[in-house]
């Protein structure tokens, strides 16, 4: 009961406070046109109190109460003065003066209360930047130059010095507070850093002429959208923007975030063979995968050339050549990324394989299930794994891949993992007599059936059916042959297991399978909806014109769902780049299966190396960024 009451009180209270804040903000901005100097004073009051309360809350001030009170007074008076003076020089003096006073105040009282001893004396820690004047000047002048450059690029609208002042101040902030160590400077350093910063910030409003009636009205009108945006922006700032900036800063600092180390962390990522390993690149050209992939891609070109000849162009893409290029490309990427090792390449391999396979399978299933008899049931089953968390999926598949030391006497060598039980069981089958004969008969019957089907289809000129049954015949015949000569894990009277999770580098593919398994449902549902949204009139018109199913799919459906493919691919890329749970659960990054997210977590939290962890996070962020930008651009276009 008590809990319920406090909850209700809390909800009502927070809603009430929000409403008061919201209405209050609107009323304050209503003040702007008529009482400009009071409004200006209020802005000064709010700005300084925010800044100094933040400093106070972080224990960065000595005798914080008094200092904050003085600072707020200076800020309010400064704001008031700026709101009523129209003399240019006086305005500059008020703005810059108030800013410098505030900066010097913060600088001279900059101390960090680190803890309190048993007898009550506080342990004080200096929180002052250790200024390095060379780099500091460089940053500031560099910032000012950037400001000038922006001014030039901005078609020289505003006064040049304001742009230079603003960016120079930003440069100063970076040079004074972000680069050097923050805990070993002297008091005069802190005062200097604060004063110049205050000057920069104060001079910005100080160098503007007093707002005209038009501008005051505009402040009132323009403020509305910001008041509405403020809660959302505040939320995003706290949860997204500030952490991102902090991560960027940490990535340039040492393991505990104390000293500035420049790009050392990034260098370390590329110098470590666990994260970036090019040493085996020569093996690429000698690997079987490369040759098979290259040949398949070439076959695709041959098919395209043949098609092109038929209609009189150089090469003409068609479903068979697309399929071969797709498979060949996957094989080539596997060939490349199984020799270029390390976390970064491994992550890239994940992105390529999972994105391509999950997209293709989702599209294929959506097309095949479309208008089929048990469509919704079939789609539901494929969609089900979506409901399983990545951790759950990882654990499930770890059991599927599980191997057991084979023992001779037990069926299937005592395997408890499904895949190894099948594999060893297959070996048992091909080592047996009667079961093997029965299996051979069955597989032989299927092969004969497929052959008959293919021949008949060729006669009837149903090329799609003919070719697909021919292609399906290849693995069946291969399986028939393998059964005769022996297939599966069985030798010398005992099982032979496959270590799915331990044998690098192709154990990565088995882990990717888990993610594909969960994501195919997602891609299928999206594609299915997109296919159903293709206008029926278009398809009917094509049918009337005599287009086959295959033609109307490639010529009508695919162009219609290209935007959907884009969305699915970009969503998948972002998702796969961040893959963490599956690797964490199944291998924890052992056996050459490390990915960036897990590496980041291990560096930052297992080893408490926040610099390196943050650098990895930034690498991941930069890698995801173009995809996000692409996605947002397209979304804007769609609207």
């Amino acid at each position, binding site marked *: 009961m008590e809990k319920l009451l406090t909850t209700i009180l809390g909800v009502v209270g927070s809603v009430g406070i929000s409403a008061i804040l919201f209405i209050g903000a609107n009323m304050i901005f209503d003040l702007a046109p008529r009482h400009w100097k009071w409004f200006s004073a209020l802005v000064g009051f709010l700005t300084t109190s925010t800044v100094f309360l933040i400093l106070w809350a972080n224990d960065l001030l000595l005798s914080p109460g008094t200092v904050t009170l003085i600072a707020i007074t200076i800020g309010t008076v400064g704001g008031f003065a700026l709101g009523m003076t129209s003399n240019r020089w006086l305005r500059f003096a008020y703005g810059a003066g108030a800013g410098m006073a505030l900066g010097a105040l913060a600088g001279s009282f900059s101390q960090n209360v680190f803890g309190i001893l048993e007898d009550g004396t506080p342990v004080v820690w200096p929180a002052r930047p250790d200024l390095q004047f060379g780099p500091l000047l460089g940053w500031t002048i560099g910032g000012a130059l950037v400001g000038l450059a922006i001014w030039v690029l901005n078609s020289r609208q505003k006064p040049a010095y304001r742009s230079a002042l603003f960016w120079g101040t930003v440069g100063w902030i970076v040079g004074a507070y972000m680069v050097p160590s923050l805990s070993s400077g002297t008091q005069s350093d802190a005062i200097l850093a604060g004063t110049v910063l205050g000057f920069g910030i104060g001079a910005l409003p100080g160098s503007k002429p007093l707002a005209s009636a038009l501008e005051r009205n505009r402040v009132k009108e323009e403020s509305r959208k910001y008041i509405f945006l403020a809660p959302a922006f505040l939320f995003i700032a706290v949860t997204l923007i500030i952490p991102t900036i902090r991560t960027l800063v940490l990535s340039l600092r040492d393991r505990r975030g104390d000293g500035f180390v420049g790009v050392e962390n990034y260098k370390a990522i590329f110098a*470590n063979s666990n994260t970036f390993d090019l040493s085996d690149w020569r093996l690429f050209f000698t690997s079987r995968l490369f040759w098979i992939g290259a040949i398949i891609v070439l076959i695709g070109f041959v098919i395209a050339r043949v098609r092109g000849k038929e209609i009189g162009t150089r090469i003409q893409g068609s479903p068979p050549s697309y399929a071969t290029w797709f498979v060949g490309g996957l094989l080539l990427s596997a060939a490349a990324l199984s020799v270029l090792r390390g976390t970064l390449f491994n992550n890239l391999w994940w992105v390529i394989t999972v994105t391509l396979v999950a997209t293709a399978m989702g599209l294929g299933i959506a097309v095949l299930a479309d208008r089929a008899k048990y469509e919704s049931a079939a789609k539901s089953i494929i969609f089900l794994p979506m409901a399983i968390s990545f951790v759950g999926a990882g654990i499930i598949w770890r059991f599927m891949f599980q191997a057991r030391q084979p023992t001779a006497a037990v069926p299937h060598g005592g395997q408890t993992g499904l895949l190894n039980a099948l594999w060893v069981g297959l070996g048992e089958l091909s080592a047996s007599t009667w079961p093997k004969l029965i299996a051979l008969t069955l597989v032989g019957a299927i092969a004969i059936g497929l052959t008959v089907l293919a021949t008949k289809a060729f006669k009837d000129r149903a090329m799609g059916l003919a070719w697909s049954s021919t292609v399906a015949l290849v693995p069946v015949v291969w399986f028939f042959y393998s059964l005769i000569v022996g297939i599966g894990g069985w030798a010398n009277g005992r099982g032979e297991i496959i270590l799915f999770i331990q044998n690098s580098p192709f154990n990565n593919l088995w882990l990717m399978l888990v993610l594909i398994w969960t994501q195919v449902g997602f891609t299928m549902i999206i594609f299915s909806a997109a296919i159903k949204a293709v206008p029926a009139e278009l398809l009917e018109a094509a049918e009337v014109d005599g287009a086959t199913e295959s033609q109307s799919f490639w010529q009508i459906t695919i162009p219609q769902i290209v935007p959907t493919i884009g969305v699915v691919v970009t969503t998948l890329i972002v998702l796969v780049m961040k893959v963490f749970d599956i690797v964490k659960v199944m291998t924890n990054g052992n056996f050459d299966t490390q990915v960036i997210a897990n590496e980041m977590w291990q560096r930052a939290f297992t*080893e408490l190396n926040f610099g390196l962890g943050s650098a990895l996070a930034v690498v991941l962020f930069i890698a995801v960024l173009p995809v996000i930008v692409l996605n947002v651009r397209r979304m804007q276009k769609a609207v």
Partner: protein
Amino acid sequence: MRKRRNLTKTALLLVVMALVAAACAGDAANQTPETVVVTSIVTETVTETVTETVEVEVPMADPFADTAVTVFGPESGGAEEEAMRAALDLFAAKSGIDVTYLGARDFSDQINAQAAGGNPPDIAVFPQPGKIADFAREGFILPLPSETEAVMNDNFSSAWTAFGNVDGVQYAIPTKADLKSLVWYQPARFAAAGYTVPETWDDLLSLTDTMIADGNTPWCVGIESGGATGWTFTDWVEDLTLRFEGPEYYDQWVDHSIPFNNPQMASIWQTVLDLWNTPGAVFANSGSIAATSFGDNGQPLVDGKCFMHRQASFYSAFLPEGTPAADGSEGAVDVFYFPSVGDEKPVLGAGTLVSAFRDAPEVWAVMEYFASADYADARQRFQALGKGAAVTEGVLSGFLSPNVNADLSLYAPLEQSFLDILNTADIVRFDGSDLMPSEVGAGTFWTEGTSAVNGDKTIQEALDAIEASWP
């Protein structure tokens, strides 16, 4: 104590402690006795249901009313966690503090995230002194107050308390000891096959060869342990380093006054991997050493799929229920000393220590309980119960306490001898990886070791990577 047979194979071991409160001295007359019942249910595969009633005096005036303490540690699942929980429940009932224990296999990862993220538990059970040193220097954990330190000093020898001492300040209390230089085996099976316990390293190697030649599998090895995969390998390396290179080298290696990738280290790794990679030498339950969980080796050993398993004294907690210990019966398991090279018989030890993150009277009260013989005895009693039999039957609990005031009669004779060895051996060294900085000791030493065992990297590549990661 009352016992009765239960027909079901899987039964609940129900430990009911009816705690009858005795009224405080002052107003005993007008206060009715309070009864606190603490029920701790242990799900174990046992054939008996044991009910034990413990009567404990509970003071009425409770200075710790409405206080709670959380304890986080690496002991999770099975008898170890249940015994830890029951021992803390007992204290909770006595003191009125609400003590919660949480165990996680990937403790060493999680405690970092919790401490760095600012929401640590009140007390953590550290298996690694190296991490205690890291955390003390980071300012995460608190030095012991003088009263708590005094309680600790009454109960532990300085050899053990030293592991919780960082730069002259005491931060942690030892709570558990492990003897690592042990090989588990079944004497009856050895006798039947005509094998003798090896006395030297060469004996061990030739015994291994003999077993392979006889068609037997000598070793059970598995190094998988979730986020801590690889630590079993580091134990082998440490034990062999102590044997081949001696304690001076060992100390220099641990404190990094010699580089990690020196040639001697490479040859020790080579020795371990040569033994493991000898065809037919190792039974790995999950197909490969790197895939087999370290806890999965007890059953194959008892089943006779392998003859020897090198693992610490706590491994008895992982043996199948009701496995008799060193009593000469058919399926009994026993241990022999992991043979040495020369005349010296160095011993590798390890243990856990508790350290506090929050400064509050109830936290220090729980810490003092950890330091007391009461904890050591309660934990041992419950862990032996959790292993499915009464203490008097001499079942191995897997728990050892370094507490000098602990009641030795609660331990099986075999485990009493472990304590003797730890306390009297000439050369005792703490598990090296646990002393190294956590980047190495709980990081690359495990992961690079796993890579080398799995054949993903050569020994030199792995050693170079460890050396590069030393902070």
